[in-house]
C-alpha cells in the first residue's frame, strides 16, 4: 500500500560554499525522495545562501528529514513553510508555435494570467507568466490546446509573510 505523500516547501539558509546544494539535496536523495523543485538564491548576506526545495514525502518522515538537514554544519536554519502564511512564486516560460490567426486567443489567456509575450516571430511566440505553482499549472492546462514546443519552470521561491504589515495585498 502506497503511503500518503505530502508536499513540503522547505526553506534552508546555508553557508555560501561550493557543494552546498549537493549536501542538502543528498539527504533526500539518500532516502529515495525526489525533489520537485529546488532553487538556490543569494540573500542580503553574501556569506549566506537560501535554498528553497519542494518535495513530496510521507508525513512521518518529514520532521526527521528536516532534523537531518538542520544538523548539517553548512545549515544555519531550516523552516518548513506553512502554505497559508507563505508567499511563493514561480516563473514559467512557454514557447508556442502559433500562426497569426491563433495569436489573439493566446493573447487573451496571457492577459487573464497577467503574463506577457516576450518574443514574437511569424510562426511562434514565447510567453512569460509568474505566479503560484497552481496558477502556472492552470495556465499550462489552457496551453494544451495549442502547439507547445517547449517550456521551462524556474521552481518555487518563497518567503513567509510578515503578519504585522501584511494588508492582504499580493
Amino acid at each position, binding site marked *: 500500500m502506497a503511503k500518503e505523500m505530502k508536499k513540503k516547501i522547505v526553506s534552508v539558509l546555508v553557508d555560501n560554499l*561550493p*557543494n552546498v546544494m*549537493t*549536501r542538502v539535496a*543528498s539527504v533526500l536523495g*539518500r532516502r529515495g525522495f525526489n525533489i520537485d523543485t529546488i532553487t538556490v538564491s543569494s540573500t542580503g548576506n553574501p556569506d549566506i545562501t537560501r535554498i528553497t526545495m519542494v518535495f513530496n514525502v510521507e508525513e512521518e518522515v518529514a*520532521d*526527521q528529514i528536516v*532534523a*537531518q538537514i*538542520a*544538523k*548539517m*554544519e*553548512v545549515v544555519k536554519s531550516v523552516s518548513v513553510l506553512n502554505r497559508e502564511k507563505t508567499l511563493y512564486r514561480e516563473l514559467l516560460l512557454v514557447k508556442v508555435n502559433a500562426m497569426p490567426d491563433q495569436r489573439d486567443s493566446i493573447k487573451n489567456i496571457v492577459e487573464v494570467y497577467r503574463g506577457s509575450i516576450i518574443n514574437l516571430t511569424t510562426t511562434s511566440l514565447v510567453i512569460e507568466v509568474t505566479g503560484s505553482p497552481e496558477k502556472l499549472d492552470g495556465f499550462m492546462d489552457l496551453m494544451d490546446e495549442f502547439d507547445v514546443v517547449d517550456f521551462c519552470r524556474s521552481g518555487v521561491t518563497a518567503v513567509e509573510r510578515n503578519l504585522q504589515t501584511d494588508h492582504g495585498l499580493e
Partner: protein
Amino acid sequence: MKLTGAQIVAEVLLDHGVDTVFGYPGGAALNIYDELYKYSDRIRHVMTAHEQGASHAADGYARATGKTGVVFSTSGPGATNLVTGIATAYMDSIPMVAITSNVDNSLIGRDAFQEIYIAGITIPITKMNYFVNDVDDLEMTLRNAFRIANSGRKGPVLVDITKDVTAAKTEFTNKPPLPLDPKPSPTKEELAEAVRLINNAEKPVAYIGGGCISSNACEAVNELISRADIPAVHTLMASGIVSYDNELNLGLVGMHGTVAANRAIDQADLIIALGARFSDRVALNPKKWGRRARILQIDIDASEINKNVHIDKCCVGDVKEILERMLEYVDKAQHYEWHERVCGWRTKERVRRTLNHGMDPKEILEAISTMCDDDTIYVTDVGQHQMWAAQYLKFRKPKKFLTSGGLGTMGFGYGAAIGAQMGKPDCRVVHITGDGSLHMNMNEACTAVSENLPVITVIFNNSVLGMVYQWQTIFYGGRYSSTVPHRKTDYVKVAEGFGAHGYRAENIEQLKAAMADAMKQDGPSWIECVIEPEERVLPMIPGGKTVEDIIVE
C-alpha cells in the same frame, strides 16, 4: 610568521594536542610528509600497510583514548582507500580528522594522475568536508575540522588539500583551538517531566548506548540506575558502562542480546534511552519494541528523536550533563517485584550449546577474560566472534570494547587494535577476530611488527564465514553459497612470515599456554583457535521479530 601549507598542517595538529597520526604517503602528499619528517620529534606518524588500515587505526586510537584520530593519505587511491574507515567512524560517531592531499590546483578537474574528487565521495559519510585550494583558508579550515569532529554528536571530518597549497606560504596566526559548539540543553520543564516519568515508573529499564561513552557519562549512568533501582540493558557500543557483575546489568540487548535484556524491554513500563539510537539490530520490530512502555529518550542529536521508534518524551542534549542535572530529583527507589523478575530471568539464563566437540567459543572468551586484567582493550572484527565477544567478555570499564557496530566493517579489527595500542601503550590489547575478517586486512600484521606492538590476535577459525553461514543454515536451507572458501592458510606460518609469533590451539589448555606465552612477547602474536563451522551465535531474534521468537538452542 609565514609558513607553508604543510607546516600549517603540522602546527595545527600540535595546537590540538595531536602527537600520533596514521597514514600512508604518496606523490601529492610529499610536502606534508616532508614536514612530518621534520616534526617527527613531536608528531609520531604510523605508516600502515594500506590506507584502510590507517583509517581504522585512527578510529581505534580515538575510541581507546577519547582523543581525535588523525589519518593522512595521498590523492586518488590513497583517498578512496580511506572511505571504509571514514564510514565506519561516521556510523559509530567517532571523532576523526582525515587529511587527504590532492593534485595541484591547475590539474583539478582534468582527470590528472591520481586525481579523485574525494570531497564529493565523502559527503554522505562525514559530518563535514572541505576542499582547500587556497593556502589562506587552510588554517581556519583545519581548526574547524577539529571543532566539528568533536562538537555535538562526534564524527569524522575530511580536509582535502591541493599539493600546491601545501607548498604555498601564508601568515600563520597561531590561535588557540576553536571552542566546541554549545551543546543543546533541555529546559527545566523538560527535565522535570523526564524525572516525573522516572519517578512514576514501576517497571523501568535503562537502554544504554554508545552516546554514554562519547559523553563520558559512565558515572552518571551508574548513579541513576543504582539510585532508582533501574535494570539496564546495553547496545554493542556501550559494553562496560555498567560492570558485567552489577546485578542490574541485564547484558546486551537486540538480535543476539540476552533473553533477560530483551524480555525486560518487552515488559517494561518505561524505557530510558541514553545515547542510543534504536537501530534495526536492537529494535528488531520497531512497531512492537517496548510495546508496553513509554519511551524517554536522552540524546544529543535531535534528528535521532522519533527516527526509528516513536518517542513519548525526549531531552536533547549531552547525556552526562542531563543526568547530572536530573539526579538529585530522581527518587531513591526499590522496584522489588520488577527487580526480582528481571534479575531472575538473568540468573536463569542458559544458552545451550548443542555441539559437544571442538572448542567452545564461550570458554575461549572466558579463558582470555580470566587471563587479562580489567584495563585490557578488546578490539573485534565483525561476525560471530564479535557477538560472542560482546556476550562473554567481562567488562568493568568503558572504552575497553572497540567494535564496528554501525557499519559492521569486517577488517576493522587489526588496524583499530594497532591504533588502540599506540594510544594506550600501557594497556594490553587483544584483537578478537575470525578467519574471514582477518583475511580482509591481515596485512596490518606488518605494521604491528614494525611498531613492535604486543597486540594479541585471537582467531576464531571455523573455516567458514560463520555469521553468513549461520543465516544460510537457519533461513536458506543450508545452501552455503560462497561461505565455505576451502582456504589452506597456515596462520602460524603467516604470522611468522610477517615476523610475528604464531600459535595454534585446539583446546582450552593449549589456548591458555599460547596466551601466557604471547603475553610475554614484545611484538605481536596470533593465536588460532580451531572451532566448528556449526557453532552458532545464540540467543538470536530474527530481523523483524520480537523476544517471543527468540531462538535459544
